[in-house]
């Protein structure tokens, strides 16, 4: 086992290095741009969307009753989700799993549910509206691809909180990265 302080104990690598996080951030930015483009159509800033395979499927999906169930069009919410993923993925250094567990957990909470909501919307496309939307499928794919690579960092942070608690420290103070815990819990 390497003695590098940034590698979580019992791990063979550090899940918070930039090599680990950069691909997720890039995916989130692509998702943000794609969802932003779809939202621009839903806000009628643009008149049409690119749809190479499914005829007017994209327009059917983007104008569906499900898309405006909430006060904001669903693609705009998606764009916000991807932006949150990118920002939460970018904040903090390569030891953030122990110095800033709160941002890692926020990152996990942003990535996980976004992916699950995307899958639900994928199911809705053919089942409720008999249509497919290519770029909607692309954004859903991106959001699901991000889940696995993001979760290892969450695991490292949660194990750190567990060690803090088992050491008799406050896991709550560990969660917010308080110095007394960081200095005393490996």
């Amino acid at each position: 086992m390497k003695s590098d302080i940034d590698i979580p104990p019992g791990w063979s690598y550090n899940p918070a290095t930039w090599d680990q996080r950069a691909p997720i951030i890039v995916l989130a930015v692509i998702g943000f741009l794609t969802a932003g483009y779809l939202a621009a159509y839903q806000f009628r800033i643009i008149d049409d969307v690119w749809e190479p395979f499914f005829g007017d499927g994209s327009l059917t999906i983007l104008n569906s009753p499900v898309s405006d169930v909430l006060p904001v069009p669903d693609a705009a919410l998606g764009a916000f989700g991807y932006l949150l993923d990118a920002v939460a993925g970018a904040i903090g250094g390569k030891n953030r799993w122990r110095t800033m567990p709160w941002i890692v957990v926020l990152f996990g909470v942003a990535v996980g549910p976004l992916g699950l909501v995307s899958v639900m919307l994928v199911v809705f496309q053919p089942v409720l509206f008999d249509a497919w939307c290519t770029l909607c499928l692309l954004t859903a794919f991106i959001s699901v691809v991000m889940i696995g690579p993001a979760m290892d960092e969450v695991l490292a942070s949660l194990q750190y909180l567990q060690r803090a608690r088992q050491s008799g420290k406050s896991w709550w103070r560990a969660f917010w990265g308080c110095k007394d815990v960081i200095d005393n819990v490996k």
Partner: protein
Amino acid sequence: MWSQLSMMVVGIWVTAAPGVFDFEKSIATNGHVVGPLIATFGIVAAAEATRNVRWASLPFGAWLLVAPWILGYDNVTAMISDLIAGAATVLLCYVRPRRDYTFGGGWPAFWKTNTMHWRASGNKSVQH
């Protein structure tokens, strides 16, 4: 990783087959619900830290093996497609994954004591 990505391909196939072969609505809906789920679990399980998520596909693979009779398919193509996809999904769950990395005991650490990450951080006995 390859068996999980194969699971993704199976899920995408189950999702696409109704459109490819023009299945009737009830059969198509089954594929349109089950396919994206299997594909999703395969993609998430492709990452080693979440490899066990592949087991979430097991009930859906098993469902595809019985769905033709429970839903009463009268479409041979749909039956063959779902049986092959279901069998592949179940088998892919059981493929023994290669372990390249260690994760301090992984997710089971939360319901176990004396975990790998606890010992590796220099602690000898378990305290609560």
